[in-house]
Structures are given as C-alpha cells and as structure tokens.
C-alpha cells in the first residue's frame, strides 16, 4: 500500500518557551517533528515493512522546515514533498493547501497526526478528509491491513472502536499507538540523498477564518499547602479540609 503522511514542524513543547508581550518566543533551535505525526510516520513504516508498499511524506511549512522533512526521511520514508509557505496558517489554511496538492496524488492511505503540539486544534485531519471526500477515522491507537482494507482501532469516548475503512482513506493518529523510531546513522546518511520535491505554494487569499490575537500566560493557581505530620493525622486533616474549607465532599 502507498501511505502519504502529512507532517508539521512545531516548537518542542518541552523546550523553554517564553511569552514576550503578547507573542510566543520559541528557541528556533528546538523545532521538531510533531509527535503525533511522528507516530503516523512510524505506523506507516511498520505496515509497509510488514505488507509491502511505500511511505511518502508531505509538509506544508517554511523553508526552515527542511530539517523536519529530513527527520521523517531518516526514519525511513522514501520521498517527500515540501509545500513551501511563508506565514502561519490556521487549520483550514493548512487543510486547503494540502488538499490542493493531494488531489492530484495517488495513495491508499493518507495519515496525519491527530493534532499538532503547537495549537492542539486537531482539525486539519477531518477537514482534509472532507475536502478530498475520503472516508476517515480519527484518534487511531492501532492500525492494520486486512484484505486491502485499513483496520483502525480508535479511542472513542467510552471504549475502543474497531473501524474498517476501504482505500483510499484518511486516518489521524494518536501518539499512543507506538514509540517512533530514532533514526540511526545509516538512515540519516540515506535521508540526505532522498528526493524532496519543493513546490512553491500560493497561500489562500483573503483573511484567514481564525486569527490568534494574542497569547496570555495561564492563570496561576492559588498557592496550595503541604499537610505535614503523622500519616493518621494528615489524612484526618485532609478529609476535614475537603469538607469544611474546599466544600467538595
């Protein structure tokens, strides 16, 4: 099967991220492959290693995102497309750009991370499915292929739903489905020779549907207190505080 995986470059959420006025300042050295997308790449590689096929990645982002594309290639993807854009887009903007490109591409499975770690919006996947009229499933925690159909285990509200999809289809992946491989030296060397097709993309005209006006710090919680003392006494005080002070029991 042919997998196309949509990937995004995001700030590393574990790196120091500061607020400067109303804007976020990220250390540009710490831009990484979105963790959910890394799981989608990993799962596509596992399935093609098992059943045959190929993995191609597509990234919409600035010139500086090449490093993130190389990471996916070093993991084992065969080739990549870089849809080059300058500014920041909202989910709809990304979905439109990806859809415009993917309409002309052939694939069996289009895989995306279920959300991107920078915005946690989780919209682009299902927007893309709708724009391309593909059957889809979201929040996959497991994938398999049986009789040329994709079997998706998705984490729903109450339990896990096992969905069978015909191809071509789209699936959005949770990072709970695997631990993405760390590229080895051989993979990194090979990635340098792999083909990245660069496409200059016209950004959607007109104002975006949603705009980030500003960032704000999370409101601080009231400072709490540590209850010290003998365990029996501490537990009695806790229950009493929950009843009389916090009034939650």
């Amino acid at each position, binding site marked *: 099967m042919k997998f196309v995986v949509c990937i995004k470059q995001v700030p590393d959420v574990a790196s120091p991220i500061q607020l400067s006025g109303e804007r976020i300042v990220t250390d540009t050295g710490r831009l990484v492959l979105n963790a959910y997308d890394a799981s989608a790449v990993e799962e596509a590689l596992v399935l093609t290693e098992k059943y045959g096929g190929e993995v191609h990645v597509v990234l919409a982002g600035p010139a500086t995102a090449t490093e993130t594309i190389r990471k996916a290639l070093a993991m084992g993807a065969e080739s990549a497309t870089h849809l080059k854009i300058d500014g920041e887009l909202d989910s709809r903007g990304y979905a439109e750009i990806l859809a415009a490109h993917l309409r002309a591409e052939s694939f069996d499975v289009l895989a995306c991370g279920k959300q991107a770690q920078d915005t*946690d919006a989780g919209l682009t996947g299902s927007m893309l499915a*709708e724009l391309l009229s593909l059957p889809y499933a979201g929040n996959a925690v497991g994938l398999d292929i049986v009789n040329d159909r994709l079997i998706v285990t998705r984490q*729903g*509200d109450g339990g896990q739903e096992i969905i069978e999809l015909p191809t071509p289809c789209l699936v959005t992946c949770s990072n709970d489905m695997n631990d993405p491989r760390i590229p080895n030296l051989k993979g990194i060397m090979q990635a340098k020779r792999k083909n990245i097709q660069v496409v200059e993309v016209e950004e959607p005209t007109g104002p975006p549907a*949603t705009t980030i006006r500003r960032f704000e710090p999370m409101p601080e*919680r009231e400072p*709490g207190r540590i209850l*010290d003392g003998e365990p029996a006494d501490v*537990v009695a005080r*806790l229950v009493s505080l929950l009843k009389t002070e916090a009034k939650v029991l």
Partner: protein
Amino acid sequence: MGNILAYIETQDEVCKRSSLEALTRGRQIAEQRGDRLVAVVLSPEPERYVAQIARYGASTIFMVRHSLFANHLNTPVLAALEEAARRAAPDLLVFPSSESVKEILGALSIRLDGSVLPDVAAFEQTETGAEALRPVLAAKFLARVRAEHKPVLVSVRSGAYSAEEHPVEAQAEEIPFDFDPATLKQTLREIRAPQVGTVDVSEARIVIAAGRGVRDERGKQLIEELADTLGAAIGSSRAVVESGLFPASSQIGQTGKVVAPDLYIAVGISGAIQHVAGMAGSRVIVAINKDADAPIFRMATYGIVGDLYDIIPRLIDQLKNG
C-alpha cells in the same frame, strides 16, 4: 435575533454533563443577545432526552432518530448535524469537546463553510463571530483566538462552564433523517468497552487519578476502593496505561482526556506537563506522592508527601468511618 445550535450527546439514558455545560454557555449567550437556543440530539430514541434538555433552557429541540446513533460513527453524525444546521441556520454552534466531536468538527466546519474554535476554555460571541481562550503548547499558555467567518463552531472543554438548570417550555421537533446504512463506506466491527458501570472520567465531579507510583494490582485495588468510596471516576497517567494496569479510556492529559472536576486526587502522579495539560482546570487538586519535589505539588490545593500504599488505606478508612 439569530439562532444558536447546541449539540447534545447522551450516555446511559442521560444527557452528558459536558453537553449540558456547553448548552448552558449557549443559553447565557442566547439570553444576552435575544437569540433562540436550539438543541439537537441524535439517538435511536431521542424523545427520552427532551425533558432533560428543556430543563437546561433550550426552547427548540431537534430530534434526529436513527438506529445507527446507538454507537458513534462519523458519517451519519456528520449528515445529521449538517441537516440540523441547515434548518436552524445558526450563527453559532456549540459542542462538548468529546472524542466523538473532535472526530467530526473539522469536517463539519467545511460542510457548513464556517470557522472553528476547538477545545476552548472560555468564549464570547462577537459582532462578527466569536472569540475564545484556548490552552495551547501543552496548556502552558492561553491563545486568544478570533473567528470571523459565520457560522462559528465552538467546542467547549469539559468543566469550562457549570451546567445550570433553567427550565423552559420547549418545542420538540423530529427532523426527517433517512440515512441509508448501505451507503456507509466504513464499518464499525467491534467496540471494546471497559467494564460496564464505570463512571466516565470526563463526566465525573470527583476523579481519582493513578500514576506511576501505582505499581501493581494491590495499588490498583486501592485506587478502585477509594473511587468506590467517593463515587468517583478513575483517571490515569500515560505510564500506568502503558503498563497495562489501567485502560486507555481513563488516560488524562494532552493525548488523553481533558477533565476539570470539582475534586482531582492525583495518586502517585509526578505532574509531567503532558498530564497537567489534561487536569489543570480542576477546582481542587489533592496530590499524594512520595517525592516531595514532584511538580504536581506546585499546583496542588492540598499535598501529602507519603507512600500511597500507606496513605490511601487510611484515607479510605477516614472517609468511611470519619
């Protein structure tokens, strides 16, 4: 005067609390603006929920009936919500931010040619659309985001608003919906639900959450007994889902569910940012951890430094026997 459409999800014969919270926010905005509040419920037997929805202030209730709605499947849900939205022609649509809604929200916004504010902690309607506060970057920051293309679809994080009763005389209307299951491309083959009777973690007022400190079956039993004693739901961190002690449906965090109960008791949880992203909105947080330096203590209302295998049995005893 415009319309606001609120999507109501149900479970075990009742409307989900997260849906009633979003409905309540919709009702407040409808009152401010003199808008009409329309609720839509999809079910094999939607009339079961009409009285409850009316108690929370929706003056019009769209009932969409289909046997397929016994389980979640995105295609019929999308078709039904598209139809409801065509009829209500709302400026604003409000949703609970559940896994089922997350799966369809983007697709629905394309069908309705609207803009979306997903997973918000708060929102207001504006002249041109809506504005929301959204936790971003693993809930380290809030982004103030504006949507200026109507209709605006907003999904509301569990616990962001309280569900308030506001009874009205409601008109229930059945929406014709003749979805042919034969047209479905995807098939739902199986549902693996955790044991029946357990409280859904995103619906509960009290959550007991287990982390890495819960090492074994004995620890799991303590968590279950404490949850039973308090009528609480059980949540978990990624570590104990991966170890197989707790089901994935209980996972709380950036990857799992977002909860904001009245009382969150974190047992053996260190407080990694990915976990905190899913529970930081809880009203009262109790942390029980052996490690006095665990980051969870920085956000705990009350903290106990101690071994959970010692503390939890005492806590259960104290709650039962006072």
